[in-house]
């Protein structure tokens, strides 16, 4: 059995699969998405915590907030600088970041993250409420 041709065929198939990211992206550079901040968010300058902390840890912060509000009926969050915030996704977070598509979704789509916030919460509570009233 001289199987050189079969072995070469196997190697070619392996490297085609291995190089999937290269031919799938077609050499087009895809930079990270630029976030759009609303006027209100720009004016506030800083979120409940520093930008760096929020980028990396917002999901944990929201999880702890939910636990505190739903299980312990604590509704006030005091940040490291002593500032107080109401622990609420709809009323605090979305108050400034009312542009879910340009703010939340951009990074989540880029990093393939599917948060289940929106299973219960609506995107833009204020707009919806205004419409009903």
């Amino acid at each position, binding site marked *: *059995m*001289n*199987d*050189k041709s079969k*072995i*070469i065929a*196997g*190697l070619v198939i*392996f*490297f085609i699969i*291995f190089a*999937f*990211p*290269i031919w*799938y*992206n*077609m*050499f*087009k*550079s*895809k*930079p*990270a*998405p630029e976030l759009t901040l609303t006027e209100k968010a720009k004016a506030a300058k800083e979120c409940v915590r520093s930008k*760096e902390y929020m*980028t*990396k*840890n917002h*999901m*944990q912060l*929201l*999880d*702890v907030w939910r*636990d505190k509000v739903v299980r312990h009926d604590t509704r006030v969050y005091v940040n490291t600088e002593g500032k107080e915030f109401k622990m609420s996704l709809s009323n605090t977070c979305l108050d400034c970041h009312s542009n879910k598509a340009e703010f939340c979704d951009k*990074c989540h789509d*880029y*990093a*393939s*993250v*599917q948060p289940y916030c929106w299973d219960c919460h609506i995107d833009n509570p204020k707009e919806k409420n205004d419409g009903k009233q």
Partner: protein
Amino acid sequence: MNVKYMFSLMAVVFLFLFSYLGAEVAGLKVLFGIIIPYVAILIFVAGFVSRMMDWAASAVPFAIPTTCGQQSSLPWIKQNRIDNPSTKTGVIIRMLLEILCFRSLFRNTKMKIHQGQKISYKLEIWLWVSALAFHWAFLVVLVRHLRFFTEPIPGFVKFLEFMDGFFKIEFVDSFMQIGLPGIFMSGLVLLAAVSFLLVRRIMVPQVKYISLAADFFPLFLIIGITVSGIYMRYVSKVDIVGIKELTMGLATLHPTIPEGISSVFFVHLFFVCSLLVYIPFSKLMHMGGIFLSPTRNMLANTRAFRHVNPWNYPVKTHTYEEYEDEFREKMIDAGLPVDKKE
């Protein structure tokens, strides 16, 4: 203390310190984020091809299939078509079962002597179970990482992520928070399985005796990769969007180093590069070698067909008949007996 595993462990600790200090203190992010990954991939590809071609150029002088069942024989004797295959289909099924299900590991038995006299053999499935868990979890983790190397992310990666995070394990208390970002089973299974494989090599005396530094090093390295990955995802948290910008740069050949990427990421990347470079020069080549195992991929038809080594040199022969034709007259003159007298 065992020199072999301490040596391997120290090698991995050295790799960690080298990359962490290199990225954190010396700030060599271009080296660790761009140059080393590309060099590692080139070494991996070139080394992998050269090892495989080396094997492809090796002679197969004998038919040496191992069999675990009845060979194809008389029509009224039932053949075991998969364990003793006489057809190509049988061989393909046997190879698939070997590669996907590790059947030869499943056959592992453990011998025990009871009351000093009786020998008993017991099925020893833990190596098989942990090897399966390890390899499949590693594959899932690898495919999941395509989310960093593709844009838009293909559906099968998203589906795999969904299945991997199917059990939404969550726990929140004043002292700890688990569940966001979502727990992926594969990473934890991978860590558990690779730890078991390491503990097995250290705790089982017979296995420890035959284990070399080259057996421990890949285990420690893979533990390093897994722990740094899990640490980044669940504990320290990193700027995932920045990291994807870097990895996408690598995949699209437009390398960039975004600001604010944690040094742990460079450690993780350097470990992966070390593994890639290490593969062609080590036992990890079983990735390609499994396809070339002659005991598994040859037809078990040695009684029906003669195996001729295709590498046989075309030997020049000179038979007695030819010899006699050449020297007949001289032989007759000398009075020697000949077979044919003209």
